[in-house]
């Protein structure tokens, strides 16, 4: 009995001494906590959470859209670059082709010109040779004519002198002598 009352009084005395222990529950404080928290929840929900969360969502959407846009732009740019590269390659090929073609043409032209000039030169040489031949022939003919004339003249002289026999004999002897001497 005494022990029970001891505990009883001790509890009260303890409560009196430090105005409530560590684990004491204060109904007034509970009420104020509820009121404060609910008030804070409602006020912040209205002035803060709703606008802030919607702003954050909005911004996230904007960022997402921007990223998507950037991605499509990048893809487009890549396509364009690829196109450009292809066009450039094509142009290069074409240029190369043109250069090759012109080189080939030049080669052909050169060969042609060379061939033509060779032919011309040959022709010229041949012409010259023909002319020389002709001139030679002409000169030979002239010579032949002159020789014939000289021979005829000589024969005429011989014939004029060929009147007597002794003379003839003398001549023959003379020729014979000459022949022997040779």
């Amino acid at each position, binding site marked *: *009995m*005494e022990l029970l*009352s*001891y505990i*009883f*009084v*001790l509890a009260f*005395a303890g409560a009196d*001494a*430090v*105005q*409530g*222990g*560590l*684990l*004491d*529950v*204060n*109904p*007034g*404080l*509970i*009420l*104020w*906590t*509820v009121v*404060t*928290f*609910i*008030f*804070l*929840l409602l*006020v*912040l*929900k209205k*002035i*803060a*959470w*709703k*606008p*802030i*969360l919607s*702003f*954050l969502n*909005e*911004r996230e959407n*904007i960022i997402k859209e921007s990223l998507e846009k950037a991605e499509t732009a990048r893809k487009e740019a890549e396509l364009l670059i690829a196109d450009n590269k292809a066009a450039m390659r094509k142009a290069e090929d074409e240029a190369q082709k043109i250069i090759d073609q012109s080189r080939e043409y030049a080669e052909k032209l050169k060969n042609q010109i060379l061939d033509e000039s060779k032919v011309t030169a040959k022709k010229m040489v041949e012409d010259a040779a023909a002319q020389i031949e002709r001139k030679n022939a002409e000169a030979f003919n002239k010579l032949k004519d002159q020789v014939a004339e000289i021979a005829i003249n000589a024969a005429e002289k011989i014939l004029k002198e060929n009147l007597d026999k002794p003379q003839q004999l003398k001549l023959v002897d003379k020729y014979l002598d000459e022949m022997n001497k040779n």
Partner: protein
Amino acid sequence: MWFHSANTVADNVKAAQEAVKKTDTSWILHHVLDAREIDLTPFGIIHLPKLHLLGMDISITKHVVFMWIAASILIFTFYKVSKSYKKSLIPKGVSNLTETLVLFVRDEIAKPNIGKGYEKFLPYLLTVFFFILTCNFLGLIPYGSTATGNISVTATLATISFVFIQAGGMMKNGVFGYLKGLLPHGLPTWLIPIMFVVELLGLFTKPFALAIRLFANMTAGHIVILALLGLIFILHTYIVVPVSIAFALFIFLLEILVALLQAYIFTMLSSLFIGMAYHQEH
């Protein structure tokens, strides 16, 4: 007879209290406990008004004042932040800090723990996170007091959490469906009454654990700091001063971590329990 013996016991207790006062350590509790005045020594003491409502003592106490301070800070800060967002979507200044925390609560706490339909609980979770965080930090500044180091406050917060958990579960699954969903599937019929009681108890232990955890964490650190500093006065020597200060500073830094951690844990567990009640199929 009984009264008489009670009187003598009371005398004995008074004598014991007198004896205790010589090596008094009640000042430690005095700093941690709620009070009817705000002690701003050496600038004076503010006595708070006493109020009564329907026979209930609803006096404004120190912790009530600090809860109001926390609420005012939050309302002021978020009013500014909200206004700055209206100007431009790019955060700057305080908005950067709050945005980090808001996004943390949304993406790291609410989204993974509640899952689909987390948006409905986001205002509550954000409020409770910032409220506990601010209250915790208010206890770390000079002349401050930790409202979250009071069991009445944490129990009330846990009860509000409990209400949100049950309301969430009942809104999603219906009152009867929610209660039925508490029981695991494929239970033998004779086990159902027992398990129902067990699960029902489980519902209440969760907020109870929330309340005790927050209260104990916020109180313990303060008591340790005060005890470490109290060593100087108890031992009456300057030799312990560097040790006491160093340890107290270490605990204080730990308290900063704990302040953040407990706000996170309270919110995280609340959202976890909401998620469990909301998506019972898991």
